[in-house]
C-alpha cells in the first residue's frame, strides 16, 4: 500500500483553467502539507493542515485553495492557472508531536501552456 498517494501524477492544461490535485495518506498522521518544487528543484512549503484545520498558509495566492475533508485527505484546487504555476507539487504528511519527519507522495507535475 502506498503511504502517501497523489493524483494525477501528470497534468497538462491551458492558462486560465482550473485544476485540482488530490492527496491521501494511510499512515494515520494528523498533519499534511503541500510543497511546491520549481524548475530549479527548490522546495517551498505552501500549506499545512492539522486534523483538517489550516495551520500554515505561506503567502500563497488566493487562486490556490486547499481543502481537507478529513485528516487523511488534503486536496489542492488551483483557479485561473498561470504559466508560473508550472511545477511539481508534493503532498506530505507527518505524525507531528515533535517528530518532524515528513512522508512524501511521488509528486504531481503540473504544466501550464
Amino acid at each position, binding site marked *: 500500500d502506498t503511504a*502517501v498517494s497523489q493524483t494525477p501524477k501528470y497534468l497538462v492544461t491551458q492558462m486560465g483553467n482550473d485544476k485540482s490535485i488530490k492527496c491521501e495518506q494511510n499512515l494515520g498522521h494528523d*498533519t499534511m502539507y503541500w*510543497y511546491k518544487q520549481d524548475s*530549479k*528543484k*527548490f*522546495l*517551498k*512549503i505552501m500549506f*499545512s493542515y*492539522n*486534523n483538517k*484545520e489550516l*495551520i*500554515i498558509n505561506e503567502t500563497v495566492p488566493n487562486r490556490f485553495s486547499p481543502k481537507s475533508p478529513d485528516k487523511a485527505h488534503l486536496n489542492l484546487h488551483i483557479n485561473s492557472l498561470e504559466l508560473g504555476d508550472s511545477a511539481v507539487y*508534493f503532498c*506530505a504528511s*507527518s505524525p*507531528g*508531536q*515533535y*517528530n*518532524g*519527519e*515528513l512522508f*512524501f*507522495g*511521488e*509528486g504531481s507535475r503540473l504544466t501550464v501552456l
Partner: protein
Amino acid sequence: AQSVTQPDIHITVSEGASLELRCNYSYGATPYLFWYVQSPGQGLQLLLKYFSGDTLVQGIKGFEAEFKRSQSSFNLRKPSVHWSDAAEYFCAVGSTEIIRKTSYDKVIFGPGTSLSVIP
C-alpha cells in the same frame, strides 16, 4: 526564522570515492535536522535525522551525518559512493511550533545538491 543553505549546487564524484555534502542552518534553538534524497521522478525519502543526543547519526544506504553546533552545520557523508546514489539531496531544518494550542512540525528545505556519479 529558520533557513538552510547548501553551498554546492552540483557535485560529481567517481564511483567508489568518498562523498561529503555540506549543509548550514540558521535557527535560534537546537533544531531537528534532516537529510532527504530525491531520485529522478520520485518523491523525497528520508536518509537520516538528528533530534538530540549523539551528534553523529547513521542513516539508510550507508549515509551518516554529523551535527556541529559551533559551525551550525549538518554535513552528509558516505565513505564509498555507488552509481545508484546519483540523485538530488536536500538538507532540511524542522521545528515544532504551537498555533492555536495545536503543535505542528514546520520543515524548511535547503536548495538541494545534485549528485552525479561517474562509473
